[in-house]
Every structure is written in structure tokens, then in C-alpha cells.
């Protein structure tokens, strides 16, 4: 049976792993190559590097990091952040990563996803989707930015306001309380709404040839209150390709929910691993205890 994957995500800035909240107060957290090797030893199933280096001139640095990392780890490595051209992808794959994840560039030019999948194969093209609930209804301020430019089939549609769970609170305090919300795909780190409906967009990127979706709910991201189960489940059911749940993880139990009720194929997390709150091994133990199929790396079973 296919195991559910546990994927640590490392923010990489100027060639170093960094920790910080919302990209503020960045603290150095080590050499990406060493951190990657440590996670491999702990039994991580894959690894993601998110290049948060702003400038394009510094791409050489991430290429070097990828190259050095791929010399020492023997599991899939995905790199995301600032990927805009086929040449960006070619360079990263050549440096030794296995998949690239595309975010804003997919929204700005969906054809880019198709071209990338045709040229490099769907198996290495991951699309990141960052939805955020935007209140609609009488008296509520909604951003209509760009909504008219979105093809009708992909445009946001009203969805019920969450009545329970961690996201209901922020809507119940609004006056008047909105009756519906949009699941509006955001770009630029959750700052810019696009007018794309999360479900329609997920189906569209699948058609364009994406091999996997990383879904980061901007409502859940950074809260550590748990993944956004409602949207994760809806997207997982809407597409045939695997969906990786991301954003909001504060404990292994949150992963259990994302991988069972949420229907996700994998759970991505950053802070719970980086701050040493839980090791990958402890996390997998918890998942296994809850009946989630995980790979328990028992290296002693392999006679070298």
C-alpha cells in the first residue's frame, strides 16, 4: 500500500536555511546540505527547498545548494521559489533536483505549466496553490481585483462560510456576518488575490499537466492550529493527482487529520521539525498509531 509521505520544507535564503515568521526576523538555521542529510537519516520521505532569496541574480546560489545536497541524499528533492522560465527548470533539474514547484508563474501564465510538463514530464512539475477565504455578501468588503479577467469557468464561486473549526471565528466576528466566502487563490505569499476558484484552478492545473499539487491554505498557514481540512479534502477529491497538505501544522495529530479526513497524499511541515519539537521518527510513530500507512525506515533490515 502506498505510504503517506512526510515532507519537511526548508526555507533557503542566500544559501542558508533560515527560520522566521512570515519571512521576518530571519534566523540562520544551518547549512542546507547538513540539514537535508539529517532529515534523510531520520527517515523523511521527500524534501522541499523553498528559495526565498528575492533577487534573480542569486539563483546561482540555490543551484549550488541543490547540487551539493543531491550529492548526499537519495530521496526526491523538490525546489520552489521564483521559478518563471523553462530555463529556470532545466537548470534546477540539471543541478540534481527531482521536481520543481511553480506558484505565481502558473497563475500569470498557465501555458507555462503545459510547456513545462511537455518538456520535462508531469512527474517533475508541481503546482503550488494558496487559497484564502475572502468574505462576500452585503456590507463586506471584497477585493474584485482581476476577477473579470479570469475565464468564467475558473472564476471564484460562493462557498459556505465555515460554521465550525479554527476558521469560523474570523468570520463570525465580522458585522454583518458574511453568508458566503470565495476560495480565492492568492499569489505573492498570500498577499494578492487572483479571482481564481481553488477547486476550478486545481482541476485546470491537472489538465495542464501538473503531476502534483501542494495546497497551502493561507487561512491556516502560520497558525499551528492544524491544516485546513475543508479545502484540502475538497481539492483532493476534485483531482486525480496527489495533493500535498501544507500550512498550519503544529503537531503530528494535525498530520493525521490532513492525511485521513483531508484525503491528502502527503503532509508538508516546516516549524515542527526545525525547532526540534518532533523528529520525523516520532511523527511517523504517531501516524502509525493512528492507522495511517507510513514508511518506517528500518535500515537494519537491509543487509549491506
Amino acid at each position, binding site marked *: *500500500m*502506498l505510504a*503517506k509521505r512526510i515532507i519537511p520544507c526548508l526555507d533557503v535564503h542566500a544559501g542558508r536555511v533560515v527560520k522566521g515568521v512570515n519571512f521576518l526576523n530571519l534566523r540562520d538555521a544551518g547549512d542546507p546540505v547538513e540539514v537535508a542529510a539529517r532529515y534523510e537519516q531520520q527517515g523523511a520521505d521527500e524534501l522541499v527547498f523553498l528559495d526565498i532569496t528575492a533577487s534573480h541574480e542569486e539563483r546561482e546560489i540555490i543551484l549550488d545548494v541543490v547540487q551539493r545536497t543531491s*550529492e548526499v541524499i*537519495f530521496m*526526491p528533492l523538490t525546489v520552489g521559489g521564483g521559478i518563471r522560465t523553462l530555463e529556470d527548470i532545466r537548470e534546477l533539474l540539471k543541478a540534481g533536483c527531482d521536481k520543481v514547484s511553480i506558484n505565481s508563474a502558473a497563475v500569470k501564465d498557465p501555458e507555462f505549466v503545459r510547456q513545462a510538463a511537455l518538456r520535462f514530464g*508531469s*512527474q517533475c512539475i508541481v503546482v503550488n496553490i494558496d487559497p484564502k477565504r475572502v468574505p462576500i455578501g452585503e456590507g463586506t468588503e471584497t477585493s474584485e481585483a482581476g476577477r473579470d479577467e479570469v475565464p468564467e469557468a475558473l472564476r471564484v464561486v460562493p462557498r459556505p462560510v465555515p460554521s465550525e473549526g479554527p476558521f469560523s471565528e474570523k468570520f463570525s466576528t465580522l458585522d454583518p456576518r458574511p453568508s458566503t466566502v470565495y476560495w480565492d487563490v492568492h499569489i505573492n505569499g498570500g498577499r494578492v488575490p487572483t479571482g481564481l476558484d481553488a477547486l476550478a484552478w486545481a482541476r485546470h492545473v491537472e489538465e495542464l499537466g501538473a503531476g502534483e499539487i501542494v495546497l497551502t491554505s493561507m487561512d491556516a498557514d502560520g497558525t499551528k492550529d492544524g491544516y485546513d481540512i475543508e479545502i484540502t479534502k475538497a481539492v483532493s477529491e476534485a483531482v486525480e493527482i496527489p495533493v500535498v497538505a501544507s500550512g498550519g501544522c503544529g503537531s503530528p495529530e494535525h498530520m493525521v487529520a490532513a492525511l485521513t479526513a483531508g484525503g491528502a*497524499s502527503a503532509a508538508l511541515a516546516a516549524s515542527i521539525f526545525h525547532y526540534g519539537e518532533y523528529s520525523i521518527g516520532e511523527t511517523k510513530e504517531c501516524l502509525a498509531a493512528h492507522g495511517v500507512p507510513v*514508511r518506517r525506515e528500518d535500515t537494519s533490515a537491509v543487509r549491506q
Partner: protein
Amino acid sequence: MIQIIDYGMGNLRSVQKALEKLGRQAEICTDPRRIAGAERVILPGVGAFRDAITQLRSHGFIDPIRDFLDTGRPFLGICLGLQLLFDVGYEDGEYEGLGLVPGSVVRFDSAPGLKIPHMGWNALQIERRTPLLEGIPEGAYVYFVHSYHVVPEDDSVVATRTDHGGPFVSMIAQGNLYATQFHPEKSQSVGLKLLENFAKLPINA
């Protein structure tokens, strides 16, 4: 020297690095003339069946691969490099493969809740102990990423199966020809062990 066939389908460096980690020299081979003198040959590959078979042909690798297999020296196909060995592939049409193993390559049947591509770590059910599986326990996890799988006509070539909405063939062995649907170079210690077994196979078999 191990030759890794480069026909323009994906990153081959990871296979080479895995072998280097094991202390084995491997060369990425773009020249079909170098196949004849190789000790061992690996045919990797990711991407579409049609593109791959076209590239193999246009690079002139098809006859050298056949001739190499006739020498009895060890050959390993990985992922698409397994699928290409079969008679026919049904990815976006119908395309003739190398015809070295009787059978076809078909897509996973869609089913509610079944994710395609089959991506991630899944377990090996060992059906036949081949030298490549030496030291690898039943149920060991290896890394897969594919939407199509092989259906051999003759079950005797099957070495392992894996479950994804039902059992599919994840590894075959036919004489000196071995091939895996999974990526040993991405499968940590289990994958390295398998590559090491391959590198240690006698070359005069």
C-alpha cells in the same frame, strides 16, 4: 565500467551519484558505440513513452542494446527504462517498444480515491528471489513515480509486485535483463542495496 544510457530523457546524474556513493564508476553514455564494450548497462528514463522510444532510435541505441543483451552481461532498466523493453506502450496512443519482453504498458485504471500518478513510497511483494534482491526484505519500501505500468505476457519474468488499487508488476528479471518500475537511486538504503547487487553481478553470466 557501467554505462548509463543518455538519450535526452531526464536527469541521469542521480543514478551515477548513487553508484559513486557505492564506490562504483559509472559513465553517462551518449555514444551508442560505447555500449558494446560496457561491463554493465543501465537504461534509466522519465517522461513519455513515445518521446523516449523516438529518442532511443534517433540516437542509434536500439541495436547496440540488443547486441549487449546477447552478450549475457547485466542490464538494468529503471522506470521508463523498464517500460520501453516491452512490445507496446499505450501512453497517449499506441507505440511500439523494444519488444525484448513480451507484453504491454498500460495506464492505472482510474478508481475513486486512487491517486494517479502513483507517487511515493510503496512496498515490494517479492515473488521470486533474484540476485538483485539479495539482502532486501519482503515489504521493503521503494520510491515510485509513474502513471503507467507493465503487463508481461509471461508471469515467470515477474520478480516483485506492488499494490496500488490492485497488484502491479514492480520488477522483472529475465536472464541477464533486470528492470524496476521504482527508482532505486531515490530509494535510500534499499535502493542503494539493489544497485550494489547489480554492480556485483558476475559479468560472464
